[in-house]
Structure formats: C-alpha cells, structure tokens
C-alpha cells in the first residue's frame, strides 16, 4: 500500500501534538502504576513522578506481590485463570467459526431467523444470563468447576465473535466455495481448507479478544468460582484491597503490573491481527 505522507506543515505539527498529548494521558496511568510498584507507601501519593525517589526504590514489592499470599504465589492464580481461559478461547474459536460459516455461506431455511437471533443475543446484556446460569449450574453441580466459565462456549454462545466472523466472511469471494465444491469437498472440508486459511486473522483476533475479556472478567469468577483453590487472578487482585494488617500499596501495584503483563505481551504479539481485526467488526455494510 502506498502512502503519501503529508509534508510537515503547521497542521501536521498540530496533529502530532494532539496525538502525543492524548498518548501521554492514555499511557501515564500505566507508567505511574509500574513506577509506583517500586515505591514505598510514602512516595506513591503527593507527587507526579513515575520514578521512585533516588535510593528509595523497593524492588522487594515485586517479591511480595509474587508470593501474593501465604498459600500460593501469583503464578498459581494465573494458571487457574488459564484453566478456564484456554478451553474457553479454543471452544469459542471452533464453535463460532463453524456457526459463522454456516450462516454466512450455506443456504438453508431459517437462516434469517438464525442471523437475527445472533444479533439479538449479541445485544442482550450478559448480566441477564449470569444469575439464571448460576442457578442452572448449581443444579447441574458444576459451580466451582472451571467448566462453569466455558461450558457455554462449546455451544457457540459468543454471539459477538460469530457476528464478527460473518461480517468478515462477506468479503471472501464465493467462487472459492464453488471451486471447493467442484473438487468434491463437503461443507466442513470447504470450511477447513478454504475458509479457515483466509479467515485466520479474524479467528486469531477473536481468540485474542476472547482471551483478554476472559482475563478481565471479574463477575463471572466472583459468582461461579468461590473456592480459595480456584480463585482467578482478578479475584486475588481484588482481595489485595480488602483489609489486610497493613496495605502495602507498592505490593498492590506490583501485583497489578504482574497481572497486566501477560496481557500486554499477548497484545503486542498479536497487535497486527488485533488492530485490523477489531476494525473489521464494523463490517463493510
């Protein structure tokens, strides 16, 4: 793609200025968090500096945050989080891609209904399902299992991802499907050999988003997982703010930074997919 960059004019200087100021506003909190993770309680408030005062850096905050409580280190809770996140992400990717494919590419009676229902459920607040599902899971006896956080994803309940993939699939030429059909591929094979390779970026985006949102989910684990042994990162972070003998803010910040680090790493690793993928959710309609 060829880009004709603007010459450095007053207008573009102004634009850079806006971008830099907005960037600073957006990034400062995160840098302040990382900086404060190295500070003692006294140095955190009362100043704007990101860096701890000379000689007052407390890297031991990270050691404290790592061994976040007496029984487990923070890795334990991170692994707990992965125990539902990985199945959740994989199941979402598989079931939603399949569903999106059927709706976008196959013709069948009732298609309009299915698509409408996907949009309707997309707009329905997740919260509407939390409590009834809690009751259902309770009856099924799967509360306090990680399955309670991903079982629904096996059944393509991630309407957002289905919608996103349908939108994206519209831009894939139908001739590809036709060709595959002539080659004797059935629907599933067409999906796997023809559509999925083209769809890869959007599937990766879906996986990344699903993963990140799962990391952020707090209400779900709060309701479905209530055992100390299955607490997730978000739960254990929240506990840092509950009454302890003494709140060491540096430790809380360090724990927060540790918790966000994997997300930032994953974000940068996948950012090229992310940025384009999210942009395409708007679709080209």
């Amino acid at each position, binding site marked *: 793609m060829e880009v004709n*960059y603007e010459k450095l004019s007053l207008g573009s200087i102004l634009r*850079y200025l806006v*971008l830099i100021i907005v*960037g600073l506003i957006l*990034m*400062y*909190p*995160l840098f*302040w*968090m990382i900086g404060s993770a190295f500070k003692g309680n006294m140095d*955190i*408030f009362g100043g704007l500096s990101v860096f701890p005062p000379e000689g007052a850096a407390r890297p031991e905050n990270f050691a404290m945050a790592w061994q976040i409580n007496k029984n487990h280190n923070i890795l334990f809770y991170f692994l707990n989080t992965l125990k539902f996140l990985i199945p959740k992400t994989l199941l979402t990717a598989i*079931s939603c891609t*399949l*569903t999106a494919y*059927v709706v976008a590419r*196959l013709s*069948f009676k009732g298609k309009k209904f299915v698509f409408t*229902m996907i949009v309707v459920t997309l*707009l*329905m*607040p997740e*919260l*509407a*399902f939390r*409590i*009834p*599902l809690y009751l*259902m899971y*309770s009856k099924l006896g799967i509360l306090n299992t990680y399955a309670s956080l991903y079982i*629904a994803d096996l*059944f*393509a*309940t991630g309407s957002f991802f*289905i919608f996103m993939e349908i939108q994206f699939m519209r831009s894939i030429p*139908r001739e590809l499907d036709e060709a595959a059909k002539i080659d004797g591929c059935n*629907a599933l094979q067409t999906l796997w050999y023809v559509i999925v390779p083209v769809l890869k970026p959007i599937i990766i985006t879906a996986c990344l988003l699903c993963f990140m949102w799962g990391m*952020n989910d*707090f209400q779900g684990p709060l*309701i479905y997982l209530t055992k100390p042994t299955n607490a997730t*990162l978000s739960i254990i972070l*929240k506990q840092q*703010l509950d009454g302890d003998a003494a709140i060491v*803010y540096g430790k*809380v910040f360090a724990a*927060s*930074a540790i918790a*966000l680090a994997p*997300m*930032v790493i994953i974000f*940068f690793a996948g*950012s090229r997919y*992310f*940025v384009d993928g*999210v*942009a*395409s*959710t*708007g679709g080209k*309609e």
Partner: protein
Amino acid sequence: MPTTKRKTNLTPYILLAPWFIGFVVFKVYPIISSFWYSLTETNLILQETTFVGLQHYIEIFTTDNIFKTSFVATLKYVLIGTPMVMVAAFFIAFVLNFKLKGVNFFRTAYYIPSILGGNVAVSILWTMLFNTNGPINIVLGVFGIEPVNWLTNETYAVFVLIFLKTWQFGSTMLIFLSALQNVSASLYEAASIDGASKARQLFSITLPIITPMVLFNAINVLVKAFQEFNSAYLITKGGPNRTTYFLNVYIYDTAFRMNNFGYASAITWILLLIIGVLTAIIFSSSSYWVYYND
C-alpha cells in the same frame, strides 16, 4: 445464490446444532427461567421458591427508592459516558486518518487501554489515581484547582468511572478509523474543487458516510455501559450515596448479599427491557440519520 434443490440439505442444520443447543440452553432457557424467578420469592439458601406474581415489579416501581437511585445513576453513566467515548473515538480516528508517519504506533498505543481497562488491576489503579493526594489532584493543583475528594463527592464520583470508560475508547476508535479509511478520496477531491472547506467536508461528506459505524458503535458502547460492574463495584463501591450504584451492582447485591433472587431477577428483566427499548429506538430512528450507500 439460489440453487435448485430437490430435497432439503440437512448439512447446515447439523452444523448449526451446537449453536442451536447453545441458543436454547444458554440463552432462551436462562431468560425464561429468570422471568419465572422474577415472579417468585426465592431463598436459594433454603431452596425455597414461592410464587408471588408481579409483586416484585410493583415494588420496584412504587416503593423501591434504591431502584430509582440506581436507575438514575446508570442512566447518567450511560448517557454521559457513551457520547464521551464516541466523541473521543471519532476525534482521534479523525486525526489518525491523516497520513502521518507513525500512525501505526499511535493506533496501537491508543488501543491498549481498551484491552486492559476492564481489568481489576486497572480499577485498583483508578482508585489510586483519584485518591485525594493522587496524581489527578496534583495536576489540577497546577492549574490552581482545589483538591477534590473524587470518590466521596456525589457530583464527581460518577465521572471518575466515566473517565475510565472514556479512557478505553480504543476499539471504538479503530472501527471509526477503518470506516474513515474506506471513504473514497475522490469524494474529497470533488468537494475541494467545489470549494468546500475542510469543516464543511467533515460535516457533509465524512460524517454522513460513516453514520452506519456511528450506529454500530453507539449501540455497542451503550449496551456495554448499561452493564458496567467492575468499576462501580471496585472503585466507588456504589457510593457516595449510591450515585454510582449501577443496576448491575444492585442486581448482584440483591442476589448475593440480600439473598433475594426473585427480586434480582425482576430488576434484571427491567434492565433488559430498558436496553431493548433504547436499542429499538436507536435502530428505528436510524432510517432518519444513517446514510446507506447502497
């Protein structure tokens, strides 16, 4: 592409089976069961359910002052927060749409907060930022503004949460940006030749063309805002005086603190209806302001 078929091809239905099961078991059934619960007095600990009819709904609309407060708080958050996210997202997308060097860097950087924003860690961070002696007050102090007790101030507390929401404009911005990039350059060229000013072009070309994206984003942001939980629960704990006691927090409290699942379900249903009605209004009004190219 209509193909002639003698017999119905079963393949699509078989492939749709997982979705259909999910739809029935994890969407339709919960919604219906939640409506049933909303008509009952349910003490989950005792495993007791008694049918009470519309009593909860009547109570919500007559004597429940907390619902009113909570509803107003939620509405305030949604109605101020949504436009703020939209404006910030559009403005930045607009600036990024100029072909500047390093746009990709900014685009990526701006997106980070929208990924992290919902995390508990960020809520903790926000609590600290808005501490009476925290950075926000120090910055304001530079401009001679007296320190504000953000989290206990009835007027400002909700804005702390709205700022957090606005901070996460990244994904909305990306959708705008991709829409802007799809606006054909020839349209602008034609307009320039006709002597239309840049501002004029913005209002008569750019905005109309991206109205479908405005619709999409608005609904997206709105529906999410209505369900806000983390920030209100963690940062302000619903206070002060319940000015940030959003419906989702109220529902959670009613169910798990007050042990009243029937009532919680009734509030959920009302919230569902409010979101439904608002979405419907936006959708039906869209024919007046959304510009469809094709």
